[in-house]
């Protein structure tokens, strides 16, 4: 492995450590630079690093396994093609996330259909894993179905706000940036989304 070979420890030890770490776990910025220089293989590391989070967003937003896979793939391909235009003003993940948000919204707009809840039909319950208690698995699957149905009944913008903030754990500021709206708008959308979700879930219970 090529490392910074400085005999004297002390202040240079940190440099050596950083160089080694960089080789083992390159930063996003380093990966982007490599991809821009023509090393497409480095893009695989970016995909590997973020595919779960992008896929999770798409799956919850589109509530359809096939659409989620398509949207995730489309988002990464767009990112690859637009990489030359990435100015580095935001970090790579924020930039990637914004592309994914727009791709999901476009995807839904194109489909013009309400989500088809195929997850339970296809046996897809990707992160339940509750030690094999069938009763709890069933309850969890039912809750997921109801939540996805309630999310699917929201307008695309309310749905995206609720997913970014309450599902994916983004702050309101980050969600607003991803959706290119003001903080006030994001807050208002979140309030309305939760209100509609509560009503929808309550009517399910009744």
């Amino acid at each position: 492995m090529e490392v910074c070979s400085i005999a004297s420890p002390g202040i240079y030890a940190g440099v050596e450590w950083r160089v080694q770490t960089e080789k083992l776990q390159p930063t996003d910025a380093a990966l982007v630079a490599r991809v821009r220089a023509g090393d497409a293989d480095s893009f695989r590391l970016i995909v590997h690093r973020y595919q779960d989070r992008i896929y999770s967003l798409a799956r919850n937003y589109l509530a359809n396994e096939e659409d989620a896979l398509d949207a995730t793939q489309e988002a990464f391909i767009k990112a690859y093609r637009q990489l030359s235009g990435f100015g580095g003003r935001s970090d790579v993940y924020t930039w990637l996330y914004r592309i994914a948000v727009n791709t999901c919204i476009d995807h839904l707009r194109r489909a013009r259909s309400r989500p088809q809840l195929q997850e339970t039909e296809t046996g897809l319950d990707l992160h339940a894993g509750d030690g094999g208690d069938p009763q709890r698995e069933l309850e969890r699957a039912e809750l997921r179905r109801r939540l996805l149905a309630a999310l699917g009944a929201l307008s695309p913008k309310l749905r995206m706000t609720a997913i970014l903030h309450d599902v994916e754990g983004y702050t309101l500021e980050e969600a607003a940036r991803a959706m290119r709206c003001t903080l006030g708008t994001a807050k208002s959308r979140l309030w309305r989304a939760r209100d509609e979700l509560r009503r929808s879930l309550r009517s399910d219970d009744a």
Partner: protein
Amino acid sequence: MSCKDCQRQLTRARRPQELSRESRVQAHLAACPRCREAYQAQFELVRQLASLAGAQAPAHLETGIMAEVYASRLQPWFRSLRLRLAAAATALVAVAVGLTLYLGTGSQPAPVTADNRDLQPMVQAYAQYRASGVTGDSGMGLMQEAEGLF
């Protein structure tokens, strides 16, 4: 604190702990059953929504993405090669058309232009002289001069 202010604080929060230090909110919640109910309902909803997070992408997704990436990386090169081939084909066609025109018009008499109009009588006389096969001195000097011109 009003109910509206309390709602505003609630909207930003994802977990009850985020509001535990907000003494004014806590005081309001203790005194207002309606806001307390909204508070409980909200955190229950957010807790449920958070359970949707953390999906893992299937293994074939990365492979599919990278296959597209490699294909799109080759596209510009492929496109430019096609452009180059198209340009070469166009050039070949242009040369072929030019050659055909040049060779096709080579056996035809040269058209009369402003430049050679004055020489036309001499050209015709020379042609008759060549065709008659007459030899001798009469007028031949001129003809021979004319021949030198051509």
